[in-house]
């Protein structure tokens, strides 16, 4: 019975339903049921004109937000605050998203560069030149990366730091520039 009463009230929507109408439908016992629902804050009762109207909880909030000026103001302030909080959270997330990949990319590059420099120093002759193949073997072993990946990163590193590295043509493998395999590298 209680559920039927609640269903009827919900079906009335934002306009609500007259208490008298409910009494007609569900009899005099419905007063007790309504009281229980009021206590449980599932429904709200308010006098509109000369009649008492009943709303389900959500519909009542909507009704107030559209008809009660005080409630309108309070609600809009609350929503604004909630939005601001959301935005703050969202920007915080964006910044985190922005920072993480940047840090990852920068970290990877710097990591590769320091490893590359170390291996270059190890492999070079007295004149400073070292075969890319030697460096590639060492870095691929230690970093577990493919030769293709290594040369892609090495080419990017050399291009990005033109003033730091010098490459020379020849050799069986290396980075390709001007259509030539450049198999030797050194620090400037």
């Amino acid at each position, binding site marked *: 019975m209680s559920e039927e009463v609640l269903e009827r009230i919900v079906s009335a929507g934002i306009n609500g339903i007259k208490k008298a109408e409910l009494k007609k439908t569900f009899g005099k016992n419905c007063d007790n049921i309504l009281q229980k629902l009021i206590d449980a804050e599932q429904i709200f009762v308010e006098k509109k004109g000369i009649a008492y109207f009943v709303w389900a909880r959500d519909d009542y909030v909507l009704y107030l937000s559209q008809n009660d000026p005080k409630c309108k103001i309070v609600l809009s302030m609350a929503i604004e605050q909630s939005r601001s909080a959301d935005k703050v959270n969202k920007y915080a997330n964006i910044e985190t998203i922005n920072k993480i990949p940047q840090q990852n990319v920068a970290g990877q590059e710097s990591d590769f560069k320091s490893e590359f420099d170390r291996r270059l120093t190890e492999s070079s002759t*007295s004149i400073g*030149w070292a075969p890319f193949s030697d460096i590639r073997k060492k870095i691929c072993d230690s970093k577990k990366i493919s030769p293709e990946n290594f040369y892609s990163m090495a080419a990017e590193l050399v291009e990005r730091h033109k003033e730091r590295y010098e490459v*020379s043509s*020849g*050799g069986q493998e290396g980075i390709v520039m001007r259509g030539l395999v450049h198999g030797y590298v*050194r620090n*400037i």
Partner: protein
Amino acid sequence: MYAYQLENNPYPSSPTPTEKDARILGGKRHKEAKSAILECIKELCNKIGGRDSNDGDFRVITLIQDVGSGKTHLALHIKNLQSRHNTVCTFLDLSTISPKAMSSLYNAIIKGFENEFFVQLRTKLVEYIRDRAEQGDNSAKKALDYSFVNKLSGLTIKQKAEEIISGKAYVSVENIKKFLVQWFNYYESNLIKNIITNSFDTVANLEELLGMMAAISKLTHRFLSKIVLYEIDEFDGNQDSIEFVKGIINAHLPASVVLLISTPSGYAEIQGKSPSVFDRLEKANYKIDLVGSNSQEELLEIVLEYIKHNDKKGKFTQKTQDELDEKIRVLYDEFPEFRSVRSIINILYHAMEKSAELDLEKIDETAIDETIKHTYPGLKVRGSIMAVPISDFISIRRTCEDESTGTQLKKAVTNLVNFAHEMGNIGKLEKQNQPLDVIYQDPYGSKIGIAVVINENHAKNFEEISNISKSSALVDKLVILTNSNLPSSESTIIINVDKSKMVDLLYFNNRYVDHKIGSFDNEKVQTLARTVNII
């Protein structure tokens, strides 16, 4: 008349340098390398001045650098300076000798000397024999073919020697051998005979070759007080070359400097094929390092040096230098093809020719564009959607770092949106609402906002982007074009505008403003609009 009112094209055009080309040497690194070689020569000259040379008076210099970096040019430049530094020099290009038989190598060494060297040495040698003859040495007289009849006719020994020197008389080949063996070793005797008779014997093996080289060095020092510089180019892992060089180093040629020129790849070949030679090279007295020989600054100095050297009228002012400097920097940055001395010199040779053909006052973008079209026909601007001609690319790219770039790009993006609207790719345009630069509706009615954030200072970019992102509520989709490398977020699409994209946008804008966008450009412009998320 060439650009800068030069009467001749200052740049060489041959694929490898000639001695004439090598008279000019530019670039800090190349000049430092030159100083180092001359220092070695000077040190040896000082050490052996005023005494006989011995096998301790031998130096090895290595010069290892990539192809096209100016090694040969430097070696030939040093050769050109020989008269100023008490040196005689022979240049030997091993790549031109095949098979590398000992006789071929010897011939190449002899040919590598200037003829003037043999003329001087021959004169000194004949004068030596003359002196001996005047002191009463009969075998010397016989060597000069100074006969009793000569004496009776009143011809003096001095006059006879002068006739021999000038080619009017000849020595007695048979008697000169007998004379020389008394005073010189086997190889020295042979060499003197060869020089005086202007006829060089061949050599059959490495021992004879090294003997003759030692004789050249010894006699040069004794009679001309000069040291010999052997420049050996294109030394690599060829077995014959390795044996030859190993022999030279082990022979300790007196009063000699050997300059070995190779590439890192050739050096590695030698390392693999002959550890003993490699070890000797590693312990060379001087290792000339042309590090950074292909760096931007070095190339610029070299390129400008050619014009400065030929600028007799003083038309190559600082302003014109700076203008050319900027163009070359763009070429260097954007085209790896032009990052070597050889390639940039080649481009400038052709650009200079083009300047004469078009009667240009200076090498401008057009001359470079025309040159590249002809000499590098397949060369395109990397990543250019608008197929920007290289001349426009150079011109726009130079201004890409100006403060006004941001403003220009905002105009370009606005015009790109206008274009997309004219083409029916997007819906209606809306009134601009700061901080967004353009607002429009896409075909589905969603409101799109675009902001351009271009600053040299990336921290400023981050700050601006952060502020603009707060305006995302104004539109359904916010697009930010920036030169900072940032990822997109849920609410904002970030488009990274690199230099290539900047040039594309600015080139489009120039053409759009000048009403030069033809129907054949439509597809390219639409692609460009897609890359910046307008369409």
